[in-house]
């Protein structure tokens, strides 16, 4: 479904990605792992188009999207939940969802209910500005916001980071359900090994801007792979 091949990316003159390749087959859950600062978030930003690669090619459903603007990628069926539970702080929870719905191609109001069925607790905070929610609530809102676009590929950047443990469980369960039951394709960046182990079909390990290991999840138990992930 998503193919990243030989992608280089840089922030100004600082190169961050060196020939990164990645394959996310339809219906799979692929986890990108690696220590801090190895380029995982940069890879996702390149996939979503906020950063344009200096070399290489990205295709989604066979279509070359390397230079496609971000909002068109979203309308094409890619949704992104950035790191750090981001929302529009001064918009209410309802407005956060509504503004996303209005920007989607389908504009089907039922999408809001579908997304809220995943995180029913959000209904209580409908009229509250998103900036006043807790980190965990905001992360639920962020995922709900992404689901409203009815994505075929969901890209998650460390969804459990900085979130209280009770909410981590809810988020994990939700991602698991979406993937297992609804068959949603997921590209996940996660440092939390247990979560990755339970959910992922395959994984890639990054180091210093390169993919140093790729394989099926069973291999994650390997001593060598564990060593690559050790801080």
């Amino acid at each position, binding site marked *: 479904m998503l193919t990243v091949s030989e992608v280089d990316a840089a922030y100004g003159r600082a190169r961050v990605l060196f020939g990164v390749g990645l394959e996310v087959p339809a219906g799979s859950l692929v986890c990108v792992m690696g220590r801090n600062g190895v380029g995982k978030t940069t890879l996702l930003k390149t996939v979503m188009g906020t950063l344009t690669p200096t070399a290489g090619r990205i295709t989604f459903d066979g279509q070359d999207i390397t230079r496609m*603007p971000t*909002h068109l990628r*979203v309308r094409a069926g890619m949704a*992104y939940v950035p790191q750090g539970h981001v*929302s529009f702080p001064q918009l209410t929870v309802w407005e956060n969802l509504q*503004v996303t719905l209005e920007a989607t191609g389908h504009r089907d109001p039922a999408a809001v209910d579908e997304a809220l069925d995943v995180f029913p607790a959000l209904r209580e905070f409908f009229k509250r*500005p998103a900036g006043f929610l807790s980190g965990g609530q905001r992360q639920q809102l962020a995922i709900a916001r992404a689901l409203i676009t009815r994505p075929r590929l969901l890209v998650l950047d460390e969804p459990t980071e900085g979130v209280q443990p009770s909410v981590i469980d809810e988020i994990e369960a939700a991602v698991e359900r979406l993937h297992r039951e609804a068959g949603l394709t997921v590209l996940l960046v996660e440092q939390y090994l247990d979560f990755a182990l339970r959910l992922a079909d395959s994984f890639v390990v990054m180091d210093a801007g390169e993919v140093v290991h790729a394989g099926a999840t069973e291999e994650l138990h390997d001593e060598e792979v564990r060593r690559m992930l050790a801080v």
Partner: protein
Amino acid sequence: MGALVNQLPIGLSIAAVLLLIALGLTFTFGQMGVINMAHGEFIMAGAYTAYLLQGLTSQSFLIALPVAFAVAGLMGLLLEWSLIRRFYGRPLDTLLLTWGVSLVLQQLARDVFGAPNVQVTAPGWLVGGVDLLGVRLPYNRMFIVVLAVVCVVGVWLYLTRLPAGRRMRAVVQDRELAAYSGIATGRVDRFTFLLGSGLAGVAGVALTLVGPVGPGLGTFYIVDAFLVVVAGGLGQLRGAVLAAVALGFLNSYLEFWTDASLAKVLVFVAIIAFLQVRPQGMFVLKGRALV
């Protein structure tokens, strides 16, 4: 005492004009980080629109309001599309660029309309005034205040009730996330320019009621409008309203008590002192997420 009270409508109408001008500035500044020095020339364009239309029909002045909005708005749109969007993320370059555009537009006005000021005759129904509780309320100044209130309410409704306004607030608050939500941020930027520049054009028409029209009309107001933006907090509607009212009264009363130049100095001192205490302006984005 009487003179002091009569200064009230003057202060209010200055505040109203400043507000109309500052709205566009605060949006383009807050949303795109662009300091648009050519904003003043959209005021001028609005004022000359009223000048060109006068005498054409009996209601030329009222017709001039939407026409000036369209003329100035399209100028803003064109400026954004042709030049400014290529300079996003480079605030100093946009400052120089728009300043250059401002000079070119002023010279253009001089070539087309001549350097001397021209006068727009106020329609008959705006001549005179009414006495209310001992305060003399000139119709022209009251009209400006009503106009500004209508525009601000309109902008507020647009921002809070309409999908396009919601998109605009989303882009102001988090441009990247807006793109991730499927919003075409470039199109929203262009529309913000259209709206802000159009309001400056309306302010230009309003200004023809209280003074002559000349090529330098915009420069006279642009600095005060920027002060409103900075004191009110970037991209904040509430802040712009409060700051415009405060600055309008400060201006008119200080001018009344001292003289025009000393008043300017005192206003600057007041703003500098205020920004020492609250560098972020009156209002800022609030919430746990931003602490």
